[in-house]
C-alpha cells in the first residue's frame, strides 16, 4: 500500500555519452557500436537522482536491494543525443519497496523508453542479524 504520494523528479536532461556507452557495452559483453538497452541504468545512478533514494533509505534505516528491472523501448537511444529523463518514485510498505518509473523522451517530446526499477527495502538490522 502506498504510504505517500509518488514523488516526481525531473525532467533531467541527460546525454548518451558515446565513450561511456561503449565502455558499458564492453563490460556487459555487448557491441560497442550500439547503445546498450541497459544504458539508462547509468542515468539512474546519477547523484542528483540516486541521492533521493539514498537519503530516504538513510531516514528509514534500510538498504535498497535491487529486485527487478525492465527497459521498454519505442525507439533506440542514439549515442551523443540528449534526452529528457523524468522519474516517479513510489513507496509501498507491504512488502517494503521503492519503485522508480523513468520515462525517456527525445527533446521534441517523442517518448523513447520506459524504465522501471524495483528495490526491496531491507532493514539494516535484519542484514546485520544474518551474519
Amino acid at each position: 500500500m502506498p504510504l505517500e504520494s509518488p514523488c516526481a523528479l525531473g525532467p533531467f536532461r541527460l546525454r548518451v555519452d558515446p565513450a561511456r556507452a561503449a565502455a558499458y557495452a564492453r563490460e556487459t559483453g555487448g557491441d560497442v557500436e550500439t547503445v546498450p538497452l541497459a544504458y539508462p541504468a547509468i542515468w539512474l545512478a546519477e547523484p542528483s537522482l540516486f541521492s533521493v533514494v539514498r537519503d530516504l533509505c538513510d531516514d528509514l534505516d534500510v538498504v535498497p536491494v535491487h529486485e527487478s528491472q525492465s527497459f521498454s523501448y519505442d525507439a533506440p537511444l542514439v549515442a551523443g543525443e540528449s534526452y529528457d529523463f523524468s522519474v516517479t518514485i513510489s513507496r509501498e510498505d507491504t512488502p517494503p519497496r521503492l519503485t522508480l518509473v523513468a520515462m525517456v523522451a527525445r527533446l521534441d517530446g517523442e517518448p523513447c523508453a520506459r524504465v522501471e526499477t524495483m528495490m526491496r527495502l531491507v532493514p539494516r538490522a535484519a542484514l546485520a542479524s544474518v551474519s
Partner: protein
Amino acid sequence: MSGDIKVGDIIPETIIGPFDAPSLTRYAEVSGDANPLHLDDAVAAAIGLTAPPVHGMKLLAAFEPMLRAWRDDLIISSLAGRFVQPILRGDTVRLSGRVLRATDDEIFVRLTAYGAARAPGIIGEATLRPKAGA
C-alpha cells in the same frame, strides 16, 4: 522475417564469466553503481554471502548480446528481469532463453541466468520484433 521462429525454440546458451574483482570494479565505475556489497568481501560476508554478488544489471544487460547473436534480423523492444538470488563473483554464468510466444510481429522469450546455485539468479523476459524491412 520471424515466421520461422516457433514456440519452444531454444536460444543457444551463452556462458559468461566468471567475473573477478577487477571486473566488478570496472562495472561499478562505468555504471555508477558503487554499492560496496558488490565490491567488498566484508560487506558481502556480513549478509552471509561467501563472495560479493555480481551486479544484477551487469548480468541482465548480458542478455542483449545473446539475443542479438541469436537473430540479427530482430530488434529487442523490451528486456526485463527479476533478481531472484545472488550470482557470486567467481561463478560461471549460463544465460539461456526459450520462445514462449511467436507471431509474425512479435517474439516473446523467457530468459534465465544461472550461477553456481541450482536455482536461477535471474528470471527475465524479452520482446523482439522484426527490423523494418526485414
